[in-house]
């Protein structure tokens, strides 16, 4: 045992992170800080304001004339210079880096400006004139499958682009023999963990070599490297991808940078200059990535004692407008473990891939697990309710039993280790479940709405790269079988005995440098601070494979093993060198305290650096046939990750951890707020490599899961407008909303990975949303729960749908189409001039132009009809708009009706309103109402920012109007004119 303890001096310990010092000093260089060569140009991307439209024309001439602009590119340029991206399915779903002929979601890249700096590029972007012919969009995934729905990709002919049925065991028999069939229909929303740092790409095309040199915060998987090189029409080796040491969070999202890598490469080739692009948050939220929303109709075959004998899943994933590799991964990467933590032999599955006019779906932490477990654990609760059993007893009844590992699940997962019943008992005891039940009783007795939820899940980690093969029929996938998952790491010892490590894990903040230094220090008998780990990455120099990257928690089970193997090779080599001088067989030598020595006689040893130095300084003296220098690479792929078999079974991941959560929530009956009173999360993630880092991963996954359960959702209007384009609208939990969960650990080492470690970073993304949903269902005694469980939704469940406030009702405003983000308002203000003066000003184009904030030009184009060119800014959105406004029902100088619309690169609006003027003491009282529908980018700036901007604009307008007509200052007014005025203003 002493030997083992010595061998694992650092691994398993809560070693503080080697990453932290430079990060805390603010001196880490993230992608935006990487050096660029002189003459680097900057790109800005014009995006579609429409969910579905034909591009009739794009006029870039004005943009090109702006000093500092070097190029403007459109989809036609991109189509000429590159191929459409390769996709998993054999379907004519062609996507280029810029939209070609049609736009299919709000935020889709339409054109790109390359200019001396980003500010100029954005100026020029506003001058691009795109004419669209809008088409009816399809947004709702259930409507998308109907025959008369608008089709996103005409060449496919349907929005359902893939349907696959799977059967395992005898589901029909199980359902025929069931005492009860429990059915449920659930939905999981669109969301994303939205890293704080957005995408950054710098591309430099080297003409003489036909080589693209790219620095970006791409996180892999490098399966998409060939997708990029093929799009660029070059060999893999002609696309050099470099990633920096530091990244501002990834969460899976940063694989989706790849279309932009291609776009910026093309920009560099076209301009002959290096080009850099930095994504902003509005671009990120609207167009970067979203976990697919999923609709699941599910059935469980149940015996009266609570035994579940079969599951039927009908899963329909909404992938948005395009399938970007590796989509439709979320439907398939958890396929082998579709029976979750349960011993269920009979399973029927239908998987459908559906397209809609929304942002293309993507890899996001959890990758299909949150959706799948939401269905499984909701129905397990319903089974308990229908049988009048305790939900935890139903979970216990169906768990994969103890002592059967490795256990082959129905759909093919080979669950490596665990003891689920013991883990649950430990969590119940350490988490004091009985006390929580008492607390629920007390709360309920006091009239409170309090509930308890449970969730038991299996956390898959390290994806089998063959998992997507299962979407293809057997004969097709047998022609080109895929499986496995390679990891690479290299350990280098230089002439002075300093150790450095590189690896292909592309970390996004998890602490990989620390853990690799722990591993190598243990193997070589050094201290972690002696090991310099460099995880910046370069496809031209580093060992890599298609599985390279940071996703599916592959680090702890895979990269660590490759690194250990490399370190073991170094150890073996240095032991042979030392053996020559120590006269002890190499295999008997120990590495400890910076020495290589005879454990029986520790005095007989040499310093580590001496042995390493010999391989550099005196290679002639090395043992026979030994190569000089000390640089060893470990490459590892587990044999358990095979291609799917002829029964469609596949071991989709290498390791399977166990997570069991329970929680208590209290619901504020007045506000509908869900308060997490207590949360316990049990993890069996195999061997823990660094407890400090492991707990940090649990806390991070938990926090995002709280967001998914309670706040986070990408919301679209029926017209496809994207309504959550800022962090004021896409709400992210802060320190105030995330409680500290109680973490309980048990360790059942995995037998399929040498270090015994499984994944731990995604479990709570899968268990926590459904655990909280189950608790809310328990508190409210309801079945139909929709995530996120916002106060509005919870209140509606308690009190019924809320009616709009009476005073905010637009009185007689002509109804707008009312499908996007609709701003309505009424108000009253005072202008210190007579009604006739105000009237005259409002009807005089020149005077009005001077009054409207941001108005560049205002022309009378017909009787009482105006065209204007206006700059407008709301929150992060600023742009130029063309407006058309007409006045009607005019009664001089008393009232008028305005209607019209505006359009610009950032969106469009249609609206109408009424103004009336009445004489008041020394001035005019102006009353108004309006209703304006916003679409496009502007609509994604939600209510709070729009209203704030509205107030500011109204105030500005009245001050200027006052100055124009009366010369004096103007009273504040209750504001709110402004959108009228905006419409008027904008337009007029």
């Amino acid at each position, binding site marked *: 045992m002493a030997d083992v303890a010595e061998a694992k001096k650092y691994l398993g310990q809560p070693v503080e992170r080697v990453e932290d010092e430079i990060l805390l000093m*603010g*001196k880490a260089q993230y992608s935006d*800080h990487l050096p660029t060569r002189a003459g680097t140009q900057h790109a800005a991307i014009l995006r579609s304001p429409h969910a579905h439209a034909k591009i009739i024309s794009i006029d870039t001439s004005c943009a090109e004339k702006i000093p500092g602009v070097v190029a403007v590119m459109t989809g036609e340029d991109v189509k000429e210079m590159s191929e459409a991206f390769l996709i998993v399915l054999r379907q004519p779903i062609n996507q280029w880096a810029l939209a070609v002929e049609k736009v299919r979601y709000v935020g889709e890249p339409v054109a790109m400006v390359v200019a001396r700096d980003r500010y100029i590029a954005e100026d020029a972007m506003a001058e691009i004139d795109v004419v669209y012919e809008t088409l009816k969009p399809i947004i709702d995934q259930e409507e998308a499958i109907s025959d008369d729905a608008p089709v996103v990709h005409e060449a496919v002919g349907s929005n359902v682009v893939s349907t696959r049925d799977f059967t395992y065991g005898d589901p029909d028999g199980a359902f025929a023999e069931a005492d009860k069939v429990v059915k449920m229909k659930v939905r999981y929303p669109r969301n994303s963990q939205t890293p704080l740092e957005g995408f950054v790409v710098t591309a430099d095309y080297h003409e003489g070599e036909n080589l693209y040199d790219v620095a970006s915060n791409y996180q892999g998987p490098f399966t998409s490297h060939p997708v990029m090189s093929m799009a660029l029409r070059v060999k893999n080796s002609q696309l050099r991808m470099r990633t920096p040491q*530091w990244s501002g969070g990834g969460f899976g999202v940063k694989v989706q940078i790849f279309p932009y890598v291609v776009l910026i490469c093309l920009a560099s080739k076209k301009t002959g200059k290096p080009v850099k692009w930095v994504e902003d*948050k509005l671009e990120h939220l609207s167009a970067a990535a979203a976990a697919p929303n999923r609709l699941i109709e599910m059935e469980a075959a149940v015996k009266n004692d609570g035994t579940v004998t079969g599951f039927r899943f009908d899963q329909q994933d909404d992938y948005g407008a395009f399938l970007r590799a590796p989509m439709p991964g979320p439907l398939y990467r958890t396929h082998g473990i579709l029976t979750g933590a349960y011993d269920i032999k009979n399973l029927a599955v239908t998987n459908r891939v559906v397209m809609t006019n929304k942002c293309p779906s993507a890899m996001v932490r959890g990758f299909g697990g949150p959706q799948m477990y939401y269905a499984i654990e909701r129905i397990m609760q319903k089974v308990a309710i229908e049988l009048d059993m305790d939900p935890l007893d139903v979970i216990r009844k169906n768990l994969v039993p103890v002592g059967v590992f490795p256990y082959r699940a129905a759909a093919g997962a080979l669950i490596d280790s665990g003891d689920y019943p013991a883990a649950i008992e430990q969590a119940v005891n350490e988490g004091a479940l009985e006390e929580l039940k008492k607390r629920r009783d007390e709360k309920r007795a006091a009239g409170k709405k309090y509930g308890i939820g449970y969730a038991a899940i299996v956390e898959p980690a390290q994806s089998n790269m063959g998992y997507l093969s299962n979407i293809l029929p057997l004969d097709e996938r047998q022609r080109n079988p895929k499986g496995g998952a390679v990891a690479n790491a290299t350990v280098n010892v230089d002439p002075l005995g300093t150790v450095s490590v590189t690896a292909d894990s592309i970390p996004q903040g998890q602490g990989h440098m620390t853990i690799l230094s722990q591993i190598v220090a243990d193997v070589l008998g050094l201290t972690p601070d002696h090991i310099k780990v460099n995880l910046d990455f370069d496809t031209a120099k580093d060992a890599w494979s298609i599985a390279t990257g940071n996703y599916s928690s592959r680090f702890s089970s895979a990269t660590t093993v490759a690194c250990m193997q490399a370190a073991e090779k170094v150890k073996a080599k240095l032991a042979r060198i030392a053996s020559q001088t120590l006269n002890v067989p190499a295999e008997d030598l120990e590495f400890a305290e910076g020495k290589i020595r005879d454990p029986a006689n520790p005095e007989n040893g040499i310093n580590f650096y001496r042995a390493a130095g010999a391989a550099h300084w005196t290679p002639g003296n090395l043992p026979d046939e030994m190569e000089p220098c000390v640089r060893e690479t470990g490459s590892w792929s587990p044999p358990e990750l095979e291609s799917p078999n002829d029964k469609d079974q596949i071991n989709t991941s290498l390791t399977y951890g166990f997570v069991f959560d329970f929680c208590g929530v209290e619901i504020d009956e007045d506000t509908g707020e869900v308060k997490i009173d207590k949360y316990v999360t049990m993890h069996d993630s195999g061997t823990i490599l660094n407890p400090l880092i492991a707990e940090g991963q649990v806390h991070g996954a938990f926090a*995002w899961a709280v967001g998914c359960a309670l706040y986070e959702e990408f919301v679209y209007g029926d017209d496809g407008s994207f309504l959550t384009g800022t962090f004021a609208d896409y709400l992210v939990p802060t320190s105030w909303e995330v409680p500290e969960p109680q973490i309980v650990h048990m360790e059942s080492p995995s037998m399929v990975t040498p270090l015994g470690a499984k994944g731990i970073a995604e479990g709570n993304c899968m268990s926590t949303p459904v655990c909280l949903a189950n608790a809310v269902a328990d508190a409210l005694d309801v079945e139909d729960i929709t995530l996120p469980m916002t106060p509005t939704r919870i209140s509606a469940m308690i009190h019924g749908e809320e009616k709009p406030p009476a005073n905010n009702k637009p009185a007689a405003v002509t109804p707008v189409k009312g499908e996007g983000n609709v701003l309505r308002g009424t108000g009253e203000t005072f202008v210190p001039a007579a009604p006739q003066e105000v009237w005259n000003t409002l009807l005089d184009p020149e005077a009005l132009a001077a009054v409207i904030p941001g108005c560049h030009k205002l022309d009378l184009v017909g009787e009482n009809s105006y065209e204007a060119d206006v700059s407008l800014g709301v929150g992060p959105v600023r742009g130029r708009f063309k407006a058309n406004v007409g006045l009607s029902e005019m009664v001089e100088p008393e009232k008028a009706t305005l209607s019209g619309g505006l359009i610009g690169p950032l969106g469009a609006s249609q609206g109408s309103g009424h103004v009336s003027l009445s004489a008041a003491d020394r001035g005019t009282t102006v009353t108004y109402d309006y209703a304006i529908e916003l679409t496009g980018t502007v609509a994604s700036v939600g209510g709070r920012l729009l209203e704030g901007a509205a107030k500011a604009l109204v105030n500005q307008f009245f001050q200027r109007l006052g100055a124009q007509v009366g010369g004096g200052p103007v009273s504040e007014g209750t504001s709110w004119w402004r959108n009228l005025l905006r419409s008027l203003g904008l337009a007029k």
Partner: protein
Amino acid sequence: MPQLNKDARHSVTLTLNGDEVTGYAEPRMLLSDFLTHEIGITSCHVGCEHGVCGACTVLVDGTVMRGCLTLAVQAEGSTVETAENLASDEGELSELQQAFKKHHGLQCGYCTPGILMSLTAYLKENPKPTEEELRDMLSGHLCRCTGYVGMVKAVLDYCENRTD
């Protein structure tokens, strides 16, 4: 208030972490862009660019400011402090920074410098906050990695045991 030509680049001189620095900025250039791309520091991280996430937080004349909601020309003549200034001249982490390291208060580190700057100002006003007060203050920042647990523990530990 001086009138600036919107199309011209203006000289901006400020005292950054004790040193006088000068760069050039059009009036519309954000302080965050100026510090990063004109001066060349690496701690003023741009997260949301609409004032919500707090990653670009710096101190301007001792006041907590969002770099993305401040124009560079507004900082003319000011004293600006950033996270680069927190460790000692010899490169030793401050006690607050050490506490973040000890309690795993950061992962990717993108939000961290901004949080440290807010804390620097806040803990001067309230040297021993309760956990509730601290969480309230930290809610002005977004962190997507940590769930805030480590940083809350770090600050409470630091406030309890600080010797600086």
